[in-house]
C-alpha cells in the first residue's frame, strides 16, 4: 500500500550508482545491487533463496549425523538418484509457469521408458532410434494433452488426472500385465551408470566456465558501449568465480576413486547424467530467458488476456508448454530406465510425479503461474534427493521419507502462497 500513498514527484537518484535518466545508464554499485536484491526478497520474490538455504541446512544436518553422507560415493549417488525427477521437474516448470499442472508427467515418462525398452530389447533397435522414438512418444503425448487443455478447454488438472490413470494402464498393457523388460544396450545403460573420464570432466568444466564467462563479459561490454545500465564487475566476477569454484569442487570430488574394491572395478569421474542435465538446464534457460517464446510463456502465465491482446497466440503457447513438459518427461523416463537397468510397470509411477512437482515448487517455481526458472527444478530436485538419500542413510523407513518430503513440499507451497500474497498487497 505504501507505494500508492507516496507522492510521485520526480525522484532523485536513490543511492550512489543508481542512474539518472530512468535508470538507463551507468554501472550499478555492488551496494545498490545488494539493496535491490534485498528489496526484491522483501517484496515476496524469493526466487531460489529458500531452496539454496534448505539445501545447505539439510547437508549440514545430515553430514553432522551421518558422516558417510559426505562421502564421494554418496555424492555421486545423490546426483544419479535425483537426475530422473529433475528432468521431469524441468518440463513441469514450463507448465507451472502457465499456472497449469501436469499430473501425468510421471506415467508419461513410464510410457516413454516402456517404448524405449520394447524397441531396444524386443525389436533390437539401435539406442538412438529407440531413444528418439521414446522422446517422440513424449512429444505426441504433450500435443494431445495441450490440445485438450488449450483448444477444448478442459482444466489441465482433469485432463492430466485422466491421463495419469490412462498412462498407468498403457504401461501395463505395453509391458504385458507387468513383466519386467531389462535393458542391455550399453549406451543407454551408460547414461545413469557410467562416468566421464576424470580428464574429460575437467575439460567440460573448463569449457562451460569459459563459455559462461565469455557470454557474460560480452553482454556487459555491449551494454556498456551503448550506455545502458550494467551490473558491477564485482558481481560478474563473483558469478563466474562461483561457478568455477563450485564446479571445480564437484569435479574434484567426483574424480576421486569411489570403488570399494579398486582391483575389481574402478569407479571415478563425473556421472554422465550430470552433463546431460546441464545441457537440458542451459537449453531450457536459454529458451525461457532469451527468446520471444520464453517471454510469451511468462506473459501468458502472468496475464493471459494481456498476452492475447498483444497478439500472442495463447493456445499455441499452452500446447507447446505441454509438449516440452512431456518430452522432458520422456528424457526422465530414459534416465530412470538406465538407472534401473530395466523398465517395469512402476517406472515413472508411485512417487515420481510428486517428487518432480515437489522439486519444481521447492526450487521456487510458483504454482500460480508466471514465476519460475528451469534452474529451480535442479535446486529443488537436489533438496528432494538430499532428503531421500539422507533419511535413507539414517535408516528411516520409506513411510517417514514420504511424510517428510510431503511436509517439505507443503512448506514450499506455503512459502509460495505467502510470498505471492505479499507481492499482491503492495
Amino acid at each position, binding site marked *: 500500500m505504501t*507505494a*500508492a*500513498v*507516496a*507522492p*510521485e514527484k*520526480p*525522484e532523485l537518484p*536513490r543511492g550512489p550508482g*543508481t542512474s539518472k*535518466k*530512468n*535508470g*538507463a545508464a551507468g554501472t550499478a554499485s555492488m551496494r545498490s545491487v545488494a539493496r535491490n536484491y534485498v528489496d526484491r526478497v522483501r*517484496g515476496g*520474490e524469493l526466487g531460489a533463496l529458500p531452496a539454496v538455504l534448505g539445501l545447505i541446512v539439510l547437508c549440514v544436518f545430515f553430514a553432522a549425523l551421518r558422516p558417510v553422507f559426505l562421502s564421494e560415493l554418496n555424492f555421486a549417488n545423490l546426483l544419479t538418484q535425483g537426475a530422473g525427477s529433475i528432468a521431469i521437474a524441468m518440463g513441469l516448470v514450463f507448465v507451472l509457469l502457465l499456472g497449469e499442472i501436469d499430473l501425468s508427467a510421471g506415467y508419461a515418462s513410464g510410457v516413454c521408458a516402456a517404448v524405449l525398452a520394447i524397441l531396444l530389447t524386443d525389436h533390437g533397435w539401435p539406442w538412438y532410434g529407440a531413444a528418439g522414438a521414446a522422446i517422440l512418444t513424449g512429444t505426441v503425448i504433450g500435443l494431445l494433452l495441450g490440445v485438450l487443455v488449450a483448444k477444448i478447454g478442459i482444466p489441465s488438472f482433469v485432463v492430466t488426472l485422466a491421463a495419469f490413470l490412462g498412462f498407468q494402464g498403457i504401461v501395463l498393457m505395453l509391458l504385458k500385465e507387468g513383466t519386467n523388460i531389462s535393458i542391455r544396450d550399453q549406451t543407454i545403460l551408460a547414461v545413469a551408470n557410467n562416468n566421464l573420464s576424470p580428464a574429460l570432466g575437467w575439460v567440460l568444466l573448463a569449457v562451460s566456465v569459459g563459455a559462461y564467462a565469455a557470454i557474460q563479459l560480452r553482454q556487459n561490454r*555491449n*551494454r556498456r558501449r*551503448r550506455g*545502458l*545500465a550494467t551490473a558491477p564487475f564485482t558481481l560478474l566476477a563473483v558469478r563466474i568465480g562461483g561457478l568455477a569454484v563450485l564446479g571445480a569442487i564437484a569435479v574434484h570430488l567426483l574424480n576421486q576413486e569411489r570403488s570399494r574394491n579398486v582391483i575389481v572395478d574402478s569407479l571415478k569421474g563425473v556421472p554422465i547424467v550430470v552433463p546431460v542435465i546441464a545441457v537440458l538446464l542451459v537449453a531450457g534457460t536459454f529458451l525461457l530467458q*532469451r*527468446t*520471444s517464446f520464453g*517471454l*510469451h510463456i*511468462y*506473459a501468458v*502465465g*502472468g*496475464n493471459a*488476456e*494481456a*498476452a492475447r*491482446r*498483444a*497478439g*500472442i497466440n495463447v493456445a499455441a503457447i499452452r500446447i507447446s508448454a505441454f509438449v516440452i513438459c512431456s518430452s522432458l518427461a520422456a528424457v526422465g523416463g530414459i534416465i530412470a530406465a538406465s538407472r534401473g537397468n530395466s523398465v517395469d510397470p512402476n517406472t515413472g509411477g508411485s512417487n515420481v510425479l510428486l517428487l518432480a512437482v515437489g522439486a519444481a515448487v521447492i526450487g521456487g517455481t510458483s504454482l500460480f503461474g*508466471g*514465476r519460475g526458472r528451469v534452474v529451480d527444478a535442479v535446486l529443488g530436485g537436489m533438496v528432494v534427493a538430499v532428503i531421500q538419500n539422507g533419511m535413507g542413510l539414517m535408516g528411516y523407513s520409506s513411510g517417514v521419507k514420504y511424510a517428510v518430503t510431503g511436509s517439505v513440499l507443503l512448506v514450499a507451497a506455503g512459502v509460495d502462497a505467502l510470498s505471492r500474497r505479499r*507481492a499482491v498487497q*503492495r
Partner: protein
Amino acid sequence: MTATPILRLRGIDKSFGAVQVLHDVSFDVHPGEVTALVGDNGAGKSTLVKCIGGIHPFDGGEYWFENEQVQVHSPRDAAAMGVEIVYQDLALCDNLDIVQNMFLGREKRRGLVLDDATMEEMAAQTLEGLSVRTVKSIRQQVSSLSGGQRQTVAIAKAVLWNSKVVILDEPTAALGVAQTAQVLELVRRLADNGLAVVLISHNMNDVFAVSDRIAALYLGRMAAQVSTSDVTHSQIVELITSGRSGDLGLAHSNGATA
C-alpha cells in the same frame, strides 16, 4: 484549430442483436489535440472506441483515416494504421518488467535471441520523450509500480510504435489526486508532441483541464462536438444528461425518447 482531422467517422451505426448502440455517429479527431469523449453510462463510448480499434465491426458508415476511407477488421489493422487504445484494465503483465511489457508481442530480436539492449534503449527514449521521471528503473517488474506508474507504462507502450492516434479509456478512474495530475500532464504532452489523443472520462474537471474539444454522446447519438473553450461545465453536463443544451445538441432528443 488545426485544419483536417486525422480520423473522421461519418454516419456510424452499430447494433448488437436487436439493440442499436450507435445511431448515425460522426466523430472527428485532430492531431495535436486532446478530444474528450464524454457521455453517461451506456451512451456508447466504449462501443465507439472498440469499433475504432477494430474489435467490433461497424454496421454502416464511413471510417476515414488521413483522408482515405479505410476498412478496419481487426486490432492489428488499427495498430498498423497507428491507432492504439489503452484500455481501462491496462493489460499489463505483472510478472514482466517495464521494457518487456512495452514490447510484448512485438519484441526486437537478433536472430533467435531477444535484443534486450535495443529494446531497453527504445523504451528509455520513449519514456524520456514523455518526460517520465517517476520510474526508478525500466527493468523493474510492473507488480512493483503504483497505479499512476502503470498507467504511464501503458501509455508509453501505446506511443512506442509511432502511433498517430492514442485512445485512453478512463485513464484516471482509479488514481489518487497527485497521480491523476501526473497522468493528465502526460496526456497533454502527447497532444503537444503532435499526436491525436482521445480521452474518455467521466470527470468534468479532467475534461476541462486537458481537452481541446469535447464530443458528447447521448443514447448512442453524437449530441455535439464542440471546442472546450466555447462551453461551460454545466452545458456539457446537460449534453450528457439530456442530449441538448440551449442551441447545442440533438434537435428532437426529448421527443424521440419520451
